[in-house]
């Protein structure tokens, strides 16, 4: 019994910024319910007083000198851009400009 339903799938897909078709919503709801039921078995394992592991590495706070090193040129970094504007990646307007007459109103 999992808490996944089509509404949750739509909501989470929106958080993940993925457009889904209704057919995908239905299919993923069914498939993810089965998967979540299987992973839900973890609840049966007693983990009181067990610390979480984020990384298995016995390393912490790896430091190095902050030195100048050669990096990519602007052209190398930009060459895959789907849409560019000179040396800038072009995207749609994120924050609309206010019309000047209403500024400060």
């Amino acid at each position, binding site marked *: 019994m999992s808490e*996944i339903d089509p509404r949750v799938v739509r909501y989470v897909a929106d958080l993940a910024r993925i457009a889904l078709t209704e057919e995908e919503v239905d299919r993923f709801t069914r498939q993810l319910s089965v998967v979540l039921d299987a992973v839900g078995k973890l609840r049966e394992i007693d983990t009181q007083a067990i610390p979480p592991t984020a990384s*298995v590495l016995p390393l912490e706070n790896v430091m190095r000198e902050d030195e100048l090193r050669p990096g990519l040129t602007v052209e190398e970094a930009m060459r895959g851009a789907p849409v560019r504007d000179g040396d800038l990646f072009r995207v*749609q307007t994120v924050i609309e400009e206010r019309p000047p007459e209403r500024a400060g109103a």
Partner: protein
Amino acid sequence: MPESSASVPALAAALRARETSAVELASAAIASARADPYNAWLAVAEERALAQARAADERIARGDAPLLCGVPWACKDIIGTRDVATTAGSRILDGYVPPYSATVVERLDAHGAVMIGKTNLDEFAMGSSNENSAFGVVRNPWDRSRVPGGSSGGSAVAVAAGEVTFALGTDTGGSIRQPAALCGVVGMKPTYGRVSRYGVVAFASSLDQVGPFATTVEDAAIVCQALFGADPADATTMPLPDEDLRRDLERGVRGMRLGVPKEYFVEGIEPGVERAVRGAIRELERQGARIEEVSLPATDGALGVYYIIQPAEASANLARYDGVRYGLRVEGPDLVETYKRTRGAGFGAEVKRRMILGTYALSTGYYDAYYVKAQKVRTLIKAEFERVFERVDALVTPTSPTVAFGIGAKVDDPLAMYLNDVFTLPVNIAGLPGISLPCGLSEGLPVGLQVIAGYNQEATLFRVAAAYERAGGRLRTPGAQSASRTGAPTPEAEGRGRAPGPEGGLRPAEGVRQV
């Protein structure tokens, strides 16, 4: 025509004896990659390969060439290659040509190894059948109606079919070892932190590791020797003293303690797989190893831990594919809609499922119940392995519960697909090294034996694997690249020309290294 599936020492000897040249080997490998009937390749980097081969021939002539110089290899297309398109098996990276190479590629370049091209894979390495590639399923050379395993299916097939001498794959939950098992070759995942991940398309960063496919255990060790070592560009690589990974290959297993975890022989394992693996364990015992049954009870939770942590990390890593800086862009009326349409069109079904699963496990209200819970069980799994390695030198298990299955058999059942990796993913959860090598056939298809060792104990891993390999033999893939080869005839060379025996091609490989 020399055979590129000859072992690395055999090729190195032939190159130095001028029986072949790196250019000749590269040309043969390019031709076989172009003619590959399994859809194993996504790109052949002919110009780059031939330039590398010419340089390798010059270096060999100067007499200062390392063992891998001039040896043809194949690169899983999730590993970034400067000026060679890198797709990760996804439409979302459409047109992406990396401006730099992964550290592992640079290291093999420095050794003079010749990269022939890029191999097919499950999209972003998410899968265990290679059916999730945006560029079509890869077919298993043992039976073209079956999957090669995944996610590094193309690399496994390129080696199994004798198109290249070795290949690189990545292994997040079994993506090297499982296809190696299903295709009858050697596949090895190093200890987490031994190989740089810099320049490798990130999937689940606390689990991913690069490793080799090869036809012999020794070749896998030779490739690891070239790959291992700290990288200033990857802060998760371990600074460790240099060591010779091949030092124990000939030592045998007499007196070693080998553990057989009872949780790895459970319901769901095919009888033919269990029979082959038990047979391999008996062989190791016959050679003088002490076999002990051990228990790893937290194994039961491994699948759950993996299918929370892995999609959670992936959902964060794949957030970068937004259609702004590289790859596909599908315009919408505003920026957020552009992101959603780009990702909706660019990602395949399995990637979308995992993005949703991972985002869900990290979302408010579920973070503690899923993500933190999984991290705690991860601690238990790791601690169990550490305890068992106080008693035994290595563990021996099946690699996969089944042999290669039919194309399409599991595509609509994600949970059934996920269970393919049930014996390999605990190794990634704990960050241990693991290797799969062929241990015979079941119903005419290869079975893999998995050996797991403690942290940074790769020399022990190769020791156990090499001991079994000497007796158990390599598998000859039906229809693999033809028999003629360079160098003096060896038992191995003669074996290659032999028709498949009653067991469908299992052949002894005594003296493989004495070339």
